[in-house]
């Protein structure tokens, strides 16, 4: 910082413009974040909000709680499976929509719509589709001869886990489509022309040109989606509520249940903090990548 008065005046103006943001951040993000850490050291009865300090007691409890480990396992399973499906379908759909098909922009809108629609709407529709008596899913599978009896899609295992994974894939794969399509449009045609002249077939063009060009965007997308899937609450809560029993209960659902079902805010906070610690590795990795991209994109 030079001692130039004008430079200083500008810096003050810049600080004033960012001040509302900083104030809001401190009030609704930083303070709650610190507060969550603090709460996790207490046991607090939700209806009265009375509590007492128990140090790391909540964490000690969690380490020995099979429910916690089960929820963590569920979270990882759900994240890995739904993310894999999102990436596979997302890349495939993007490649397809990149081609010249009739009414392409309408097709794109239709594919993107699930991503923008409210989770509540998505869940209502899917619960109707999964309805055991009158649902279309059961009807179609019976007709196709895949099953003999109507399935209980959401109330039994492993169906419930499979169902949430599928609906998650359906709801979130358009994000991958958008990201990959945007990248595909920037790959110069000349690359493909050159490969064609060199006699490369469609498959080898895909493997040698398209995939390497998509690598960076896929890394970013995988990280972002992993973070978002890991913390997903609405979709799972609304589809299965974590059931049957706790078979599809992920960590965010456990936080909610501990706080408002079992009325222990302290333990719920401990679950939330533990969950964030697991996520932190992804977040740091993503921040690093984003930081690198930023420096590269600046001249």
């Amino acid at each position, binding site marked *: 910082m030079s001692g130039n008065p004008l*430079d200083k005046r*500008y*810096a003050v103006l*810049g*600080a004033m*413009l*960012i001040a*509302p*943001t*900083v104030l*809001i*951040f401190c009030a*609704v*993000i930083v*303070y*709650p*974040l610190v507060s*969550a850490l603090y*709460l996790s050291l207490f046991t607090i009865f939700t209806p009265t*909000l009375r509590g007492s300090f128990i140090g790391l007691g909540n964490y000690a409890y969690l380490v020995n709680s099979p429910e916690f480990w089960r929820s963590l396992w569920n979270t990882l399973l759900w994240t890995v499976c739904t993310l894999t499906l999102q990436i596979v379908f997302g890349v495939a759909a993007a490649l397809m929509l990149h081609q010249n*098909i*009739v009414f392409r922009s309408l*097709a794109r809108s239709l*594919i993107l719509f*699930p991503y*923008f*629609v*409210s*989770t*509540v*709407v998505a869940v*209502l*529709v*899917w619960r*109707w589709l999964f309805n055991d008596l*009158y649902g*279309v899913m059961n*009807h179609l599978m019976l007709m196709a001869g895949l099953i003999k009896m109507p399935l209980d899609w959401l109330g039994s295992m492993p169906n419930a886990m499979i169902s949430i994974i599928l609906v998650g894939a*359906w709801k979130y794969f358009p994000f991958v489509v958008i*990201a990959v399509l*945007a990248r595909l449009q920037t790959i110069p045609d000349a690359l493909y022309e050159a490969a064609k002249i060199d006699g490369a077939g469609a498959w080898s063009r895909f493997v040698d040109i398209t995939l390497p060009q998509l690598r960076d*965007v896929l890394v*970013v997308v995988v990280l972002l989606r992993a*973070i978002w899937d890991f*913390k997903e*609450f*609405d979709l799972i809560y*609304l589809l299965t509520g974590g059931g049957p029993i706790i078979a599809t209960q992920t960590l*965010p659902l456990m*936080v909610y249940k501990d*706080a408002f079902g079992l009325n222990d*805010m302290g333990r719920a*906070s401990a679950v*939330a*903090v533990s969950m*964030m610690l697991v*996520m932190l590795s992804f*977040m740091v990795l*993503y*921040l690093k990548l984003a930081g690198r991209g930023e420096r590269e994109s600046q001249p």
Partner: protein
Amino acid sequence: MKTLAGRIAFNLFAWTVVLVTAFPLIWMILTSVKPQFELFRIPPTFWPEQITFEHYVRLIYETPFLKYMRNSLILGFTTTIVVVVVATLGAHSLVRFRYPGRERLAQMVLFTYLLPSVVLILPLYLMMVWLGIANTIFSLVIAYTTFALPYALWLLRSFMQGIPDDLEAAALVDGATRMEAFVDVILPQALPGIISTSLFTFILAWNEYLYALVLVNTDEARPLTTGVMSMLVSAFNIEWSLLMAASVMMSLPLIIIFAFLQKYLTRGFGAGGVKG
């Protein structure tokens, strides 16, 4: 895809995939205009034998749906306006001013953008209770800034980085103060980005569920997401046509945005949705 036949086959395939993906939403619309008794046909009918709008009429006159809708609109617009105004100023500051701590701040924005709501929600709940504003739309506006503000800031920052520095410099040389340059030159240039950001913020607020579930417990302040779900839970026997009608109505703003403002959505994704 050289031959005509190959091309037709590919188109058929592609459109089959698209329609299968969109099927749940198509089914939602179809169900919402079927009479109740038609839902219980086995096998189900695809096209309604009889189109009816009775569910929409019931939704409006016999349920609190309109109240929820009003709450959601107030919530969506208030959140969007507050967040976009604050974020526009903040993004301008992050992009065009130099002061200590600026880089750290930008990093923190990105970090908070990834933060899970469930970590913040308990302290926020306590805060609202303490402030005595639990169960109000206002408490939701405050809660929504936790995810909407980092998101909007990040998006707008990336839009504003795309505006050449020379434009502001030219305005300064031409005699504008920095704020005048912001108003005269930067804002008009950022307008498409601001519109995109507003749309995304509105959609985020419109679709939010968890905070609404935890912070609001009365129909007076309940937005559509939790409101419609409460209709599902409270109904003695689930009226799917009614719920599908509610779902369609709830998706109306999105359909409008998709139909008329899609270029802004695409632009928003180019700028920040993907880059992060």
